[in-house]
């Protein structure tokens, strides 16, 4: 069959290539005769031409995701249409391992899940285990635990402030605030021997009593820390860039926040005055005089203000705790849970047997279960333990505040810009160790 070669001249109705170098698409519509013809309309009124949505992946390795969090964002230009978070990149089987460890052996594990709040987690677990055992701790132990919890809250908020500033773009407060953390680390190290993963408590008491001169160090710290906060606040709080990036961003209403199960400063910034220390107190927190800051707008700026104020309230509680620290024993004298003093264990037969049983088998609580929640810097931290009478729990459940807080991030970032996603993520204050466990 013979073919005929023809040259056809076609006039393009577009400029040919779009900004990304691909052929510009021209929509076709049907005219009166039923033929498909291109529409010669200005781009603004072209019908049925949707913008393409981009799928981008942030993480799991990224400096601004506060750990190994992976966010998949659907973007329309620079605006987030949808956010799908992926977690589990730090899942290390804590709850499974808890079933294979005695109660005192689990305490080092509580350090590692929320590693910014190690003393606080130790206290929370010890309270839960003591509820399960039915032990009342001594007065000195209670006050020491309040000191540990509040110091821990303080340094956790310091990390939050430092990393939050870096995410927004201000590098200097990070250095100022980490210097203060080093001071607290030195104090913790002189108390228990470790800077960060402290393993501070034991079931029925503490790992060690505070050394001589420690109260003077703490008093000195309480006196000088507020000045550093004032310095950071002076640079940030009324700063135009700071306020501009944070006001109105990521707001959650109070009802929604409660329905999502949020807790901690995130919930309080939305106007809900729920603090476990006030509503379901532990360690005699009702006898301390402190305020709980509550925000109004629920946006990132309110969360910042709430946490800054909480740090000042921590100092207030620490001051009161230091003044009321009583003398006396730190550990209960219950031989079922606390090791006898070495002098007795080496001389008295019964003490030696108690020592042996506790070390080899571990203390055994009665059959039962207990859920104890504390106010961690991230929110309501709960430990749910189920015992079947043996020395290792049947189930050790960690109720992680960051896990529940993070589940609301798709709701918080909808409609915001990409850089707001980073700000919102930082304002939730997540710790992946706690989320993934």
């Amino acid at each position, binding site marked *: 069959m013979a073919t005929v070669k023809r040259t056809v001249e076609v006039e393009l109705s577009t400029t040919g290539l779009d900004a990304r170098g691909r052929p510009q698409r021209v929509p076709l519509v049907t005219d009166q005769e039923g033929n498909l013809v291109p529409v010669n309309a200005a781009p603004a009124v072209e019908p049925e031409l949707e913008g393409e949505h981009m799928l981008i992946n942030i993480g799991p390795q990224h400096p601004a995701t506060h*750990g190994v969090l992976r966010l998949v964002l659907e973007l329309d230009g620079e605006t987030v249409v949808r956010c799908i978070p992926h977690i*589990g990149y730090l899942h290390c*089987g804590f709850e499974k391992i808890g079933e294979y460890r005695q109660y005192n052996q689990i305490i080092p594990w509580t350090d590692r899940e929320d*590693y*910014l709040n190690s003393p606080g987690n130790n206290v929370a677990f010890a309270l839960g285990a003591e509820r399960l055992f039915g032990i009342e701790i001594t007065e000195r132990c209670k006050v020491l635990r309040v000191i540990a919890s509040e110091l821990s809250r303080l340094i956790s908020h310091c990390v939050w402030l430092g990393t939050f500033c870096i995410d927004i773009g201000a590098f200097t407060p990070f250095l100022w605030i980490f*210097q203060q953390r080093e001071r607290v680390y030195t104090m913790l190290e002189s108390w228990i021997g470790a800077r960060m993963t402290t393993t501070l408590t034991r079931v029925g008491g503490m790992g060690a009593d505070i050394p001589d001169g420690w109260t003077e160090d703490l008093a000195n710290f309480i006196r000088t820390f507020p000045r550093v906060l004032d310095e950071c606040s002076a640079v940030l709080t009324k700063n135009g860039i700071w306020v501009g990036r944070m006001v109105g961003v990521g707001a959650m209403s109070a009802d929604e926040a409660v329905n999502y199960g949020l807790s901690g400063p995130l919930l309080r910034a939305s106007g809900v005055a729920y603090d476990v220390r006030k509503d379901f107190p532990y360690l005699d927190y009702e006898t301390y005089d402190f305020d709980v800051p509550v925000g109004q707008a629920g946006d990132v700026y309110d969360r910042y203000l709430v946490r800054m104020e909480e740090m000042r309230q921590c100092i207030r509680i620490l001051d009161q705790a230091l003044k009321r620290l009583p003398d006396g024993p730190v550990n209960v004298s219950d031989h079922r849970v606390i090791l006898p003093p070495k002098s007795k264990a080496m001389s008295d037969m019964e003490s030696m047997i108690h020592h042996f049983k506790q070390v080899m088998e571990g203390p055994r609580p009665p059959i039962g279960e207990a859920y104890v929640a504390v106010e961690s810097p991230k929110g309501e931290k709960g430990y749910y333990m189920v015992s079947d009478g043996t020395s*290792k729990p049947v189930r050790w459940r960690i109720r992680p505040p960051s896990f529940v807080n993070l589940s609301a991030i798709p709701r918080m970032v909808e409609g915001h810009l990409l850089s707001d996603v980073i700000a919102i993520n930082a304002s939730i204050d997540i710790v*992946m160790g706690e989320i993934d466990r």
Partner: protein
Amino acid sequence: MGLDRLDTRRTDTGVEYVPSSQESWVTTKLDFLVNWGRANSLWPMPFGTACCAIEFMATAASKFDLARFGMERMSFSPRQADVLICAGRVPFKLAPVLRRIWMQMPQPKWCISMGACASSGGMFDNYAVVQGIDTIIPVDVYVPGCPPRPEGLMYGIMMLQQKVMRERMADKSLRHEIEPDPSSQLYIAPPLIDELSEPFGNSIHQTRSGL
């Protein structure tokens, strides 16, 4: 295979490099210059996952200052980094991410495994955690501790600097990229991985639940 490795000898102040007679003054000086440049400006890529990452941040902060080692420029993009500091525990879900980051780093590259969990799985001997990142990527320096003190990490960094100073351009085996087996993606034989990951000593008793 490169030059013979038996050209270092131990003295009481450390390890001394005794060059074999084939190398000339020019190449050794060039080696020294290149290694000096690399060792004193190692740009770290902090692959920080857990608690060790916080101690790494504390090491970079003012009290323990990494800037004096030339390492204050943290590179979160692997393309611009020299040393991957794996700080924290690496679960199996994160293992392909770590392998990918390592592959994305251009040579010359080194790896510091910071902490017990990155070096050997640490206290996490369970279904979820990789028992040592050296089963996935090659490691140059292991820093023990849980978490290691900042001084410990700095000692590890200085050890890496000494290792870098001892390198020689003529030794081609140094800058050799790992090639994992295409089907299994492992670069160490599976029986060896299993043998290294087995619990030993007192760890064996810790896999009992209940009594």
